């Protein structure tokens, strides 16, 4: 399955499904340059995979879900998070936004993960389908409004 990614304008978040890495959920705020984010997030999967494969061998069980900063680009910082079932979360934020600490990103991921779990618990959700959950939407919107500072 793939990952879900959420992008916010300056920040995007995405959830991707575990195996084929197709996007389950992509949200980007604002949506103008969405294509660019798609490319960025897609590329970040390489790094995610690399991190998983190296960390996975050492401690498969107690692996930290939060992968930290995947890589910085000129304008954005890309953060990753992988659940035990290999669902990947990616958040891209504006690199000029210095107010976001690692802890904040981590809590954002945690919220995203909880929300994703809720979606999965929905009996009407067919695993593998793109997520179209309103709860998810408001949650992600909440993420950005929490931190208006780093949102445009």
């Amino acid at each position, binding site marked *: 399955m793939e990952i879900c990614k959420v992008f916010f304008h300056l920040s995007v978040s995405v959830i991707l499904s575990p195996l084929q890495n197709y996007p389950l959920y992509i949200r980007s705020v604002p949506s103008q340059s969405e294509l660019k984010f*798609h490319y960025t997030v897609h590329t*970040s999967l390489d790094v995610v995979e690399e991190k998983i494969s190296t960390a996975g061998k050492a401690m498969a069980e107690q692996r930290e879900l939060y992968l930290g900063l995947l890589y910085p680009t000129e304008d954005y910082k890309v953060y990753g998070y992988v659940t035990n079932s290999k669902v990947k979360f990616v958040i891209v934020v504006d690199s000029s936004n210095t107010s976001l600490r690692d802890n904040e990103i981590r809590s954002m991921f945690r919220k995203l993960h909880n929300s994703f779990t809720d979606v999965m618990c929905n009996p009407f959700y067919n695993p593998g389908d793109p997520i179209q959950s309103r709860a998810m939407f408001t949650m992600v919107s909440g993420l950005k409004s929490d931190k208006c500072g780093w949102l445009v």
Partner: protein
Amino acid sequence: MAQCAQSVQEFIQDSFVPMVSVLCSEDAERVTRKNNLSFPELLRPFCRLTSEGHLRDPNNQVVVVKGLRISVTGVNTRSPNSGEVRKLLSQAVSGCQPPEGLPANVITAGDYDLNISDRSVKASVPWYSDWKEMLTQLSSSKYYTATTPWFEAYRENFLQSMPASDHEFLNHYLACMLVVSSREAVPTEQFLKLSQEQHRIQHSGEYTYPKWFIPNTLKYYVLLHDISDGDEQRADSVYEDMKQRYGTQGCYLLKINSRTGAAGPDEQMPDPWSQYLQKTNIHSPLYITIIFSEVDGLDLSDVVSEIHPLKLEQSADPGFPGNPSKAVNSADTARTQKQGSVTPGAAPTAHGACLTLNDHDRIRQFIQEFTFRGLLPHIEKNIRQLNDQLVSRKGLSRSLFSATKKWFGGGKVPEKSIAELKNTAGLLYPPEAPELQIRKMADLCFLVQHYELAYSCYHTAKKDFLSDQAMLYAAGSLEMAAVSAFLQSGAPRPYPAHYMETAIQTYRDVCKNMVLAERCALLSAEVLKSQAKYSDAATLLIKMTSEDSDLRSALLLEQAAHCFINMRSPMVRKFAFHMILSGHRYSKAGQKRHALRCYCQAMQVYKGKGWTLAEDHINFTIGRQSFTLRQPENAVAAFRHILINDSKQTATQQSAFLREYLYVYKSLSQPSNEGSLPQLPLPCVHSAQTRVFFGHEPRLAEGEKQAATHVWLDQEFDQEQAQLWAELEEQVVAVANRGSVHISFQPTQYCLSSHTENLRYPFAVVEEPMFVEVVFRNPLKVPLVLSDLSLLWKFTTKDFSKPQGGTTGETITNEKEAAAGKATALNDIISTEVIPEFTVGLEETKVARLKLLPHKTGELHVLGIVYNLGTREEDNSASEASQLMFVRGRQDLEIQGPRLNVTKEEKTSVRHGPDRRLDPIITPPMPLLEVFFINFPTGLLCGEIRKAWVEFVNVSAVPLAGLRVASTHPEFFTFGSATADLTPVTPTAAEHCSAYKTMVTPPSDAAVTLVSPAAFGITGDNRPTVVEIPLTGGVLGPGEALQIPLWLRGPDREGVHEISFLFYYEGLEKNAKLGHRVLRHKAVICASRSLSVRATACRSNTLPGRGKRDEREEERSGSMLVFVDVENINTSEAGVREFHIVQVSSSSRQWRLHKCINPAGDKDSKLASRERGKLCFRATRCRTQEATSDALEKYTFADLNLGNEQIVSSTTPCADFFFRRGPPSEPRKGGVITVGGLLRRQSLTPANSTDDSMTSIVRKCSEVELDIIVLWKAYVVEDNKQLILEGQLHVALQTIGKEACSLSQKEEAQEMVLLKFKPDLPPPASRPSLEQLSHLIKTCLHYPESYDHPFPQKSLCMVPVTLTLSNCSLAQVDVIIDLRHKTTSPESLEVHGSFTWLGQTQYKLQLRPQEVHGLSLKACFFQAGVYNLGTPRVFAKLAQSGTMCETSQQSAMPALIIINSV
């Protein structure tokens, strides 16, 4: 990563080679020109030395020089300026395309199989369905490396075009060859001249270029001898002279051109120049552009005019020794100019035509000699000199040296401080500066592959330069130090990557010299790659991308992408991303093919992974690039992909895609206008849902006339309905064929869809239209406009009238006509309807109906649809332009039949049957019937009789016969009996008349008529489902119409009824293809409640005795009382005011109503809403004399009118409907249940015969079989008009005492009847039931109602009572009469306790069939009172049967007698 053909070491060595210049005399040039080559060109293939060279370093150590290459160029060869370089490089790149047709290189990276380069364009396009298969096939091949030859070409050209710079000496000339021909009059003089010339060029200061390595350049004197043309003796002697003068190591005699004339055509000579020529031509851009123009299809004229030969000469740098008199030395350019202008695109003329293999060897020998005897010793000497200089200077020591610099170098220091940053980059050392000497020595060492020494020198130089802040020099030294560190064999020190990084940074940021930075990066990346440091290499390469050169950025990004994919865990997605970036830069740089290739490669990663936005973008770009590269097929395919998939793009984006697609498509289809039309992707056609209809479009109702509904595309397919129609048709066909249905009978299908069975070719009739309904779906958010939409067909004419299947004509198709937009061109054969415009809204599914009208018989195949696809522009101003924006294309209708699943083979494999719905056979003309209904109601009261008219019109040109109609509800309608006069009264005239035939008669006894059911077309017990409609002469001629009346009777049940009529007809002459035709009509009748009639028959207890004789006679044979309860159950109080019971008739074979014995006074009983009335009648058996043999089959109709008008019930329509009434007790059941019923009936036949006969006798006794017809009138107010409606209700009385109802009772709990295949066991109790037996004997007590008796006088009162027994049955009955009170019953004690029967208390009698017997009894009373005399118990049994079935007679109703005491 791109794999190079060379190893890294080779590559770096080849990047820095000793440079040798050539000065050539005119004559010598002429000699070489015979071979179409200049002297440097002549040498070029042989410039790599195959043997090892040796030299000694300053420490007297032997250095082995392996695989040395030298570069020989004309002295005036100048490095092109930056603009030219740029052009040159881009040409080199575009000229080098991935080879077509070679096996693709596949790299397996993780889950991805990437097909790199080569056929990637084809293989990676997403719609390339079996790409995966191909990839797996290819990946098993041996090619695992991805090559990027364009990058190598670029790199090579780039390095060669590097201008010589001051801070390094690597590409400065080390030596100069002076070439003189032996034919020269005085060669030595010529040598002198050339030598002076060389000196002038190097030292006069006139020329800034070329640059020379060392002041005393090595001069090598070459005497060129043309064997074919010169005196060898003289040449030898001149050479001897030269040896004297220059020493054996400084001169050479080169003999060439041993072949005279051209080579024989059969002789195969290797042409080593051909592979170098393109490389040669980097100095002659024109040649490459020509190749390029062939490859890329660019406009040749542009290129040529751009690089006009004149321009080259004009732009000649005055800094070059481009002396016109020395035109020979610029022969390179001249020759290629000539070649380029004369033979563009032609095969280049052969080189070295005058050279034999021996000559080649000689040249090789010459180079070797020159290098080992001349060049290497020269270098060795210079290294020693420089080393000595440095060592001697070292005496003063480095420290002192630097100290003096500090003290005396004040000139430099303030300079630096003024404008430090600016000037450090531009800082120049004088050529003799000691720092430069080190560098020079390092370069020399490097060139002769003494990397160890080179490294230490570079290192030293670097330190010096750095301390001087001479950044450019420092960077150069750093770069070379790193390279030589890498190249050191033995125990190499780790490659100092940071040196390179610093160098690149310095070059780029401080010196702003991108060219040097790029060279540095290229070298470093190559080194890093060789050490598997791919991510470092990628970073390096990506860093080098910048805005100033798109081509470089593109190439470097591509290389970076290749690095990503070569990492230990391949970063496929980064690869793809950088490929996209690279493709973007390529397209900016005008390298469209490379751009396309990059996008295609990236597509492999993105394809089918759900990244739709990215995928769409890539597809869009691929489409655009393909289009500009004139690969419209690929472009169309790419665009098609964007459009077909469920796109998440916005509407505007989609419309842009669509417009682009249309544009591309249009340009694609224009040239191939004559050929077959292309397939369009939009809108989606659901071919499986295609429906075909044969026949005319239904007419709407014309006034009162209502056309038969028939079949039309608007009707949804309904499996049940289809089944029903098929059954009806089968019935009517069976009747028409006298009971037999042909085995191959197939119900006629007018509308073919995915639900129907389409295995056979359907039949269509000539001159009758057929409609094809096509389902379109528009997946886009943009409305699509289809214009000129019509069908494509193929038609083979056949004349079926001839025997043996007729003659087959040629096949005609309208494809061409349709392509040209003239869809109507073949209208004389088949008229094709064209829909001018058809809009499919956004994301809409819409059907189009397309009509064909065949004019000839034959076989038709509908192939597909043809239309113009366009889109609607929003603004009106652009309407003109938008009109042009459409393309003509087709889509085929290919319908896959149902999957076969019968045989094992079919089950295991997936096979589909044929579907022939689009391939009709056009048959000769057939009659065509149209049916109209006039005054056909939509609502009726239950049982209401209405007269309507039906009109049959034969609209064909062929007579029609055998008209029949079948219906699911035969009781609903009648055309009247044969006896009824069919005088065609016009419908309007009959409007307000009663539907019935009436006679004015006062109410009296029943009028009786005897009627045979055969007169009403009824035979047997079955209701006729098929009715033949009589035609005058049996034929309805062409164009004729027939109007006949039609009576309708409202269904007995309320609610909405669908009544199906199937009209069957056939042509006069039997058509082999189409035996008959049918017309369907479905009427919907809403029945509302009218009256509910319940009737009960009772055996009358009156016994013969009184009355007239004939009456008695009648009664003797039996009489009944019939009670008829009529209730107005109509619910619409407003509409129906009241019901009048006009008449009650009976119809039966045995019984008839005799008399109305209603006590009520009013004869015309009215029933207002919810009122209930009761009527009582006496019924008698029909007279026996009437019951002749055939009268058994005849029905007696008896009419008892309550008003003054008698309705003759024995005529149409009353009797018709009577005979058509449904069997009341047996609800209509489905076919399955009938089967069960049949089985049961059969199983019953072999039952016990005695029991059976007994039962039947007993049953018969209580059977009645009397049908009551209640005729009523309803007064209805409708639209302020009072209407009188009439109707009739039927009640079938079957058993005495059982109530029958006009409404067939709701079948309670209609459980599922199990289908039983085992015959039921015959019911064990086949004896007549008690109840049945009780009807055997009728008893009646005759006694005075009251009896006066003076009890005081006489205490006992005796009353005579007659008990009359009447045997109702047709068998002998034994009767036992028991007068004893049943003492056991307490209740009887109570009631009867006070009287006793006198005399015999038990009688045994035997009654003959239908005998009446009176029995006199006496009752004795003791006191006055009211007594019930009904205590005698009567037992009856059939005489033949044993004692077993004695049973009690009915307990008689109380017979009360009043005993008065007087």
